[in-house]
């Protein structure tokens, strides 16, 4: 069943809002999210038998 344009508009608008919210985070929280993405990508690579990738090492508070 196709999604109606209004629902699509709501979904896109919510995604846009979330992006703006993330853009407003403090720098250190963004860096923590970046490292979380690096860890996830590294885990996916290793789980498929490929070499891992660089993951930044931050102290636990960063």
């Amino acid at each position: 069943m196709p999604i109606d344009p209004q629902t699509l508009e709501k979904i896109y608008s919510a995604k846009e809002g979330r992006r703006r919210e993330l853009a407003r985070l403090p720098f250190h929280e963004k860096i923590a999210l970046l490292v979380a993405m690096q860890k996830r990508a590294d885990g996916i690579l290793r789980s498929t038998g490929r070499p891992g990738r660089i993951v930044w090492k931050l102290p636990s508070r960063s």
Partner: protein
Amino acid sequence: MEATLAVLNDLVARGVIEKYAIGGAVGAIFWVEPFDTVDLDVFVFLPADSPPLDPLRKVISDLQARGYSFEGEFLLIEGIPVQFLPADDPKGLTKAALEKAVAVSYLGGAEPIQAWVLSPEYLIAIALDVHRSKDYERVSRLLKEAPIDRQLVSELIERFALGESWAVFEGRYPEHA
């Protein structure tokens, strides 16, 4: 990250570099939604007596003497791969960008640490100058999510002859045209 920034600040304090600012993906991340990247690009002004054919030699030997080593093309400083980029391109774009860098406070540990980040307008200009696909994507993100002075972006496009790249960008991202 704060330990890496402390090392960079120490390089400035000891005169190994004159000034630095974070650019590239991490510079953009300061202004937009975070996204994945590998390294920390650091634009630097070097002292006048730096060897012209190997301008980063003193920076690299100073850091190696402190126990930091290369991992591939990056210097690994306190767990973060760093790429130093002398701000001396022939156009003068990176020099102007570093001169206009913004002082920011990074609060990763107990105390905030000062660092410098390129402004979103100069990040856009540098991305247009490099003009890979991921650079155009970065321009789009910055225009959507960062506080942008559009007049300044236009001036930088004109001043640094980036009109051709801007036209390519507008073709790929017509919503910004």
